[in-house]
C-alpha cells in the first residue's frame, strides 16, 4: 500500500513539472513586460529598460529561463516580481490567506452538504427535499460574483440595523488594529464570516446533490435491511451502514473539490479584497509577470495532484474492496 502511494507520488512530481513548464512557456511567450514599461509616462530611460531586460533574463531563450527559474525554486527561491520584490516572501503569506479561507469554507461545505444530502435522500419527495433541491439549484446557478455582492448588501443591512460594523467585508484584517490576541482573533473572525459563507454556500449546494443521489442508491440496498433485521433502528442503520457506504463515491469529489477551489476562489478573493493565491494570479497576469504566473500555476498543480493522491488514500481508507495488497 505504502509503495503504491509512493509510486503515485513520484508520478505526480513529474506531472507538476510539466504543468509548470507549460505555464511558464506560455506566459513568457505572450507577456511583454518591457512594452508595459515603455508606455509609462514619462518613459523610463533606455538604460533602466536594458537593466530590466537583464534582470528578467529576457535575453535568454525561454527553456533556459525556465531552468534558471526552476533552479531557484528547488532552493526555495521563486524569483522576483517585475517590481523587484522577492516572490518567496509573499508566497507564504498568500498561501496562508487562501488556506485559512478555503479550509474553513470547504469543511463547512462538506459537513452541511453531506448532512443536507442525506436528509434529502431519507426524506425524498417530502417538503424538506424539495426545499433543499430548490435552494441548491438557485445557488448552483448563481455566479459567485453575484452571490458575493448579495452577501455584501445583506451584511450591510444587518450592520445598519444593529448599528455597528459586525460583519466586515473588506480585507482579512483591519489595518492597524490594536488589541490583545483575543481581540485580534475576534477581528479576524469578523472578516472571515462573509467570504467563508460565499464559498461554503456553493459547496453545500454542490455536495448535497451528489450526496443525495449516492445515499438514494444505498437506501434500497439489502445490507441496510440486514442491519435493521439485526435490531438496529432505522436511523442507526442509516448512519452506520448507509452513510458510511454512501460516502465512498464522494471521496474523489471532496479531494478534487478542494484542490480546484484554492484557485477557483479568485472571484471570492477579489470581491472581499483578500490577498490570496487567486487574487495573485489576476495581479500577476495583469502585470505581465511570468514569475508570479508560474509560481501560482505550480501551486495549483501541487494542490490538484495532492488532491488526487488524497482521493486515493481516502478511497482506500473507505472501501476495503479496492485496497491494494
Amino acid at each position, binding site marked *: 500500500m505504502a509503495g*503504491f502511494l509512493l*509510486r503515485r507520488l513520484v508520478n505526480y512530481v513529474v506531472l507538476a513539472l510539466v504543468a509548470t513548464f507549460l505555464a511558464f512557456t506560455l506566459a513568457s511567450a505572450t507577456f511583454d513586460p518591457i512594452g508595459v514599461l515603455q508606455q509609462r509616462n514619462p518613459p523610463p530611460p533606455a538604460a533602466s529598460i536594458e537593466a530590466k531586460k537583464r534582470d528578467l533574463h529576457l535575453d535568454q531563450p525561454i527553456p533556459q529561463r525556465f531552468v534558471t527559474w526552476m533552479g531557484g525554486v528547488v532552493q526555495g527561491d521563486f524569483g522576483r516580481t517585475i517590481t523587484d520584490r522577492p516572490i518567496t516572501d509573499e508566497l507564504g503569506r498568500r498561501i496562508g490567506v487562501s488556506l485559512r479561507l478555503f479550509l474553513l469554507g470547504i469543511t463547512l461545505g462538506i459537513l452541511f452538504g453531506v448532512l443536507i444530502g442525506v436528509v434529502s435522500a431519507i426524506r425524498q419527495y417530502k417538503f424538506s427535499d424539495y426545499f433543499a433541491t430548490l435552494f441548491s439549484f438557485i445557488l448552483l446557478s448563481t455566479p459567485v460574483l453575484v452571490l458575493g455582492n448579495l452577501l455584501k448588501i445583506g451584511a450591510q443591512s444587518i450592520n445598519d440595523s444593529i448599528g455597528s460594523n459586525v460583519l466586515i467585508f473588506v480585507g482579512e484584517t483591519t489595518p492597524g488594529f490594536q488589541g490583545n490576541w483575543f481581540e485580534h482573533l475576534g477581528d479576524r473572525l469578523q472578516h472571515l464570516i462573509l467570504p467563508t459563507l460565499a464559498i461554503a454556500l456553493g459547496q453545500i449546494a454542490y455536495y448535497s446533490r451528489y450526496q443525495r443521489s449516492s445515499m438514494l442508491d444505498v437506501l434500497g*440496498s*439489502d*445490507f441496510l*435491511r*440486514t*442491519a*435493521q*433485521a*439485526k*435490531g*438496529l*433502528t*432505522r*436511523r*442507526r442503520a442509516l448512519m452506520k*451502514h448507509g452513510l*458510511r*457506504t454512501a460516502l*465512498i463515491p464522494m471521496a474523489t469529489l471532496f479531494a478534487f473539490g478542494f484542490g480546484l477551489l484554492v484557485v477557483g476562489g479568485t472571484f471570492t478573493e477579489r470581491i472581499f479584497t483578500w490577498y490570496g493565491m487567486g487574487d495573485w494570479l489576476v495581479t500577476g497576469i495583469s502585470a505581465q509577470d511570468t514569475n508570479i504566473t508560474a509560481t501560482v500555476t505550480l501551486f495549483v498543480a501541487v494542490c490538484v495532484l495532492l488532491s488526487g493522491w488524497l482521493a486515493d488514500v481516502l478511497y482506500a481508507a*473507505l*472501501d*476495503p*474492496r479496492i485496497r*491494494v495488497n
Partner: protein
Amino acid sequence: MTSSEILFDSPADPVVEGPVLQVEDLHVSFPSEAGRVRAVRGLSYQVSPGEVLGIVGESGSGKSVSSLAVMGLLPESARISGSIKFQGRELIGRTDAELSKIRGRRIAMVFQDPLSALTPVYTVGDQIAEAILVHRGGAVSKQAANKRAVELLDLVGIPNAAERAKAFPHEFSGGMRQRAVIAMAIANDPDLIIADEPTTALDVTVQAQVLQLLETAQEVTGAGIVIITHDLGVVAGFADRLMVMYAGRAVETGKVDEIYQQPRMPYTLGLLGSIPRLDVGEKQALVPITGQPPSLTDLPPGCPFAPRCPMVVDACHTAEPPLIDVDGSPEHRAACIRTGEIAATDTEGAEAAAEIFGAEVVEEPEIAKVPREQRDIVLELDHVVKEYPVNKGVVFKRRVGTVHAVAGISFDIREGETLGLVGESGCGKTTTLMEILGLEKPMGGEISVLGTNVSSLDSKRRFEIRRDMSVVFQDPMASLDPRLTIHDVIAEPMQVHGYGKDEINRRVPELMRLVGLRPEQLSRYPGEFSGGQRQRIGIARALALEPKLVVLDEPVSALDVSIQAGVINLLEELKSKLGLAYLFVAHDLSVVRHIADRVAVMYLGKIIEIGEVDSVFDAPRHPYTQALLSAIPIPDPVKERQRERIILTGDLPSPANPPSGCRFRTRCFLHASLPPEQQRTCIELEPPREVQAPDHEAACHFAQIRQVL
C-alpha cells in the same frame, strides 16, 4: 456472562403459551401510479414454537411482503392493517425503536441474496458482533462479542473462523456469506427465524449445506421457522406445514404430506405438476399454467386464479372463495369451490395435475428412432482448453497465474439430440459455451461444427456457419433490445444474413405462431411482455435462421415455476418438430433430466461424467455426480425425509490453482474414506474418462454405482 449463557439465556419476558407468531387478517398495500397495489389481502397464519412453516408462491404473491410486515421492515409508504401477534404481543402500530428491540433479538431474518446482504465496508466478524452488541451492549464487552462472533462462524461451518472473521464480505463466497447471515440470525437465540428464499441464489451443493444449517440452527435455538420459497422441492423435507399463496392470499394450507399428496386447489395442483422430477425416469407430462398472475391494483371479483384455471365454472367469477376445510381435516384448508371434485379424481398429486390441466408428454422426434451412432455429428469438442491470465498491479501489470477455466473437455452432440451441461457456478460451463459460440480456434484442442473444424474457417465461412448455430440467453429481460419492436428483434438475424424483405415479413409471423405468441403483437416492445413471453421471443429469434444447433444458456432459470414448464414444453415440441439439437446449459438437474437425452457433468473445467441421461441419473459413478444429485431436493415429503444427503464440504477450489491428480479429491467423501495408498492414487494420478456402461463414461479411479434418488 460466558458465551454459552449468551446463546442459551433465559428470556427476559415470561414465555407465553401458544403460537410464537399469529397473523390475523393482514392487509398490506402500496401506492403506485396505477393505483394502490394490494400486495397482501387478508392473510392469516400461525407458527408454533419449534414448528417449520413453508410459504410457497410465485413472485408477486405477497409472500415476502407479509414477512417483511412481521419484521416491521416495509417502506413507510406501505399501509398495513390487521394483526400480527408475536408471543401474544401486538406488533402492528409499534414504533421503530420498539420493534428494533425485538428484531434480531427475538425474530431473526435470513434474506435471499447473500451477495448484497452484508455491508461491504465492515468485516464479517464486526457485523456479527454488532448483532450481539446492539441488544446487549451493556452486558457484553466488545471483546466478548467478537469472541462470540468467531464461535458463531465456527458453528455455521466456516473453517478457520478466527482468521475469517477479520475478512470483508467480498472475500467470502456466496455460500459463506449466507452462513455469516445465518450466524447473525442465531446470534441472540431468537424464538422465530424468517428465511426469505434463503437458497435461491446458491448452487445446489451449497443449497443443501445451507438447508442443513438451518435445520441445525433450529435445533440449537428451538425457534419456530418460516421458510419462504418458490421451490416446492426445498420445503418438502424441511417444513412441517405449508401455506400456498396466490395474489396476496393463502389459497391452500395444511400439513406438508397432505398438500403434496392430496392438493385440493387447482393452483397447488398446477405448481406440483409443473416441476420436472429428478426421480422420475420415464417421460413426464409437465403442467404449464397458462397466463400470468393478476395485477393487484384492481382485482376483478371472484377467484383471482379463475382466468388461469382449467376447472373454472361461472360460479368462480361471482365471489372470492374463502379457505374451507377439506377432506374433513381441520388442518387442511383450500380456497376453491370445487375441492370436492378434485378429491373425487382417482389419481393423486402430479398425475392428477396432468389430467386436470390436460398436459401431455411431448412426443419424441422421428430421428430419435435412429441409433445414435448413425446420426450426423452436429457439434464436436475435442480436448478444448481455455485459460485466462491472472494479472496483478495497477501501473505495471504482470502475470501471476493462470485460470484453467476449461481444461481439455471433449463431447459431441448428434442430430436431434439434447446434451445437458451441468455443474456448479465457476466450473467452466459458460466459458465452454463462449468458446463454441465464438467459432475461433481454441487455445488447445479442436471444435467442429457440422463436420467443419472451426480453426480452418475464413471469415466468410465463419459467417455462413453462424446460421446453423444460435443461442438463447438466460435473462429474458436483458437479452432483448428494449428499443426494438418484437418484429425487428426477430427479423434482425435474417436482415444480417441478407434475407429478402418479403421473406422476412412472411417468416416473422410464422415464427411468432411457432413459439405460441400472437402475430398481432409484433409491433409491441419487449417491455410489454412478461418474462415467459420474452423468453419465447428469444427462442423465436434463435430459430429465425433455421439452425441445426441451438445453445441454451440457463433458458428457464430466471422464470417462475409455472411459466418455466410452458417454456420447457415449447423447447421439446420445437426440437421434435424441427429436428433441432440442443446444448442445454443448466444448474437445475431436474430440468436437465426432463429435457436432455445425454448429460455431461463438469467440475473445475473438466467433464467428470458423461452419458445417457437415465444411466447417469439412476446409476451415477462419480462421487461428484452422486453428491450433486443427492443435493437436489425432491418435491415429495415422504421420499425427501428418507433420503440420505451427501453434503459436500466447502466451496469449489480456485480454478487458478486446481488440486493435483483428481481435481475433486479435496471435497470427495469417497477419497476421504479410502486407505492411504489408494488416496495417493487420487493425489498423484489424474483419473482418465473410462467407459462404465453403454454410453456412460466417468473419470474416477474408484468409480462405483451409488443410488442417491
